């Protein structure tokens, strides 16, 4: 009886650890594959061959070809580079920016805090994708502008989180001891605040990778992201959408790639959250 109640949490922790390793490995492989995607393509993803246009899947072209005769498998593989790295860049950017703003607000307080947080509220009040659409439309297409547009609407979430976490840290008794040790605010933030608030922010970022990937693909699908002929999953789906009835594989392939990547990152995010959850500690 006793033994069971003592061991039960440990087993679930071990399983969680295995899960964490597994999904980290899968995500790392995906990122690695995206990085070296250039060398993994069986064909040149840009090479057009009209004689092969709209071919069905075959031994040579596992996913068939699009309407310019480009090998779909190669394009999906090559597309991973833009899709995955622009997502990671976007999430990294808003995480860092939001955290800096949030911690700064909590530390500065007074009117600076009020002004920045009202600004964050304003951005939060806009319907996200519509605002991103407007920004992307004003700035013109291109991956960079799509990232910028989504960053503009996504940083407030991180700023709010970082701010509330920092305020909570400031209330803790150890903060008084640290202040008495004569540490400068910058040192306190670097050495004490950031390590203590990193967990929840990191989890939010991990869980956001999937959402951001879909939103970036969405902007590209609407023609406001990556510009053809650069392979990118969202724009590939938009490119081939009128073939959906006759040759569904050319549309479904990039769609499935998005689905798979989003799922991997979401599962990893979930696992990291469970791992860091104090309830699952020890």
């Amino acid at each position, binding site marked *: 009886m006793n033994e069971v109640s003592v061991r039960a949490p440990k087993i679930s922790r071990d399983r969680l650890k295995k899960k964490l390793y597994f999904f980290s490995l899968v995500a790392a492989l995906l990122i690695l594959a995206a990085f070296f995607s250039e060398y993994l393509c069986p064909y040149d993803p840009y090479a057009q061959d009209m004689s092969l246009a709209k071919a069905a899947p075959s031994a040579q072209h596992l996913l068939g070809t699009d309407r310019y005769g480009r090998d779909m498998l190669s394009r999906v593989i090559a597309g991973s580079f833009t899709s995955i790295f622009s997502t990671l860049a976007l999430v990294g950017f808003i995480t860092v920016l939001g955290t800096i703003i949030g911690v700064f607000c909590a530390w500065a307080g007074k009117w600076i805090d009020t002004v920045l947080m009202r600004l964050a509220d304003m951005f939060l009040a806009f319907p996200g994708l519509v605002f991103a659409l407007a920004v992307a439309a004003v700035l013109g297409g291109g991956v960079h502008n799509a990232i910028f547009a989504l960053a503009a609407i996504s940083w407030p979430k991180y700023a709010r989180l970082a701010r509330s976490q920092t305020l909570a840290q400031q209330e803790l*008794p150890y903060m008084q001891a*640290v202040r008495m040790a*004569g540490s400068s605010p910058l040192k306190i933030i670097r050495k004490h605040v950031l390590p203590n608030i990193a967990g929840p922010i990191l989890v939010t970022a991990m869980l956001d990778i999937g959402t951001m990937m879909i939103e970036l693909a969405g902007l590209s699908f609407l023609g406001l992201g990556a510009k053809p002929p650069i392979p990118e999953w969202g724009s590939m789906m938009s490119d081939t959408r009128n073939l959906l009835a006759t040759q569904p594989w050319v549309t479904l392939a990039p769609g499935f790639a998005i689905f798979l990547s989003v799922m991997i990152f979401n599962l990893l995010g979930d696992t990291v959250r469970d791992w860091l959850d104090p309830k699952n500690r020890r």
Partner: protein
Amino acid sequence: MEKILEARHLRKVFQAGSREPLLAVDDVSFAVGAGEKVALIGESGSGKSTVAKLITRLLAVTDGQIFLDGEEITRARGMKLKQAYRKMQMVFQSPVDSFDPRCTLGDGIAESLRNHGYAKAEAGAETARLMELCGLRPELSDCYPYEVSGGQCQRAAIARALAIRPKLLILDEATSALDVTVQAEIMSLLNRLQRELSMSYLFICHDIALVQDFCDRVLVMHNGRIVEEGTADEVIRHPQKKYTQMLIDSVL
């Protein structure tokens, strides 16, 4: 006698949202002389910790003035406050909470040394020395606060407060989690430092016997006010106020 600390007419009102404002400290004045050991006693909630936090500037005063070593620090900030903390350190009431859960005890103790110009290696060596001085095994410097016992954490907190050799040490229930032998060791360490470096102590404590043994002078707090003051023998043997008598009777 030269004064290391002087508090004049301190007042602190806690104003939390819609609740009644709470007068936690009311017109408290006292001084601590150089090399003097002053005890602050009083029932739970009488405002002892609040007084400690006011004079260490961890809480802002509502009214009053604080002088440390002749300089007013009531509104000191930045560098000036850092200088003040060089002369004044505190051991907090809840030792485990007073360490960053993500830093080891060794890091916690070394932090003030590093902030005051010690190189990393020097700070490490000094940390080991301080821990030994306070009766801690040096291996504990790699432990996190939740990995050690309350008493060990309390000794680490004392080591940290002593690190930069302050002139004034404020101990808020600093020996409450220690057993009698360790407590005696710490008290003799504090006594030695007092003789050698002429350190001063403000000693917040519930243990009347310890106060009588260790302190020169006693301040008695009740409902945010100092109601009685005198030498340890006077106050404990012949208390003037009923409240003090009750306080002494309840623990003896």
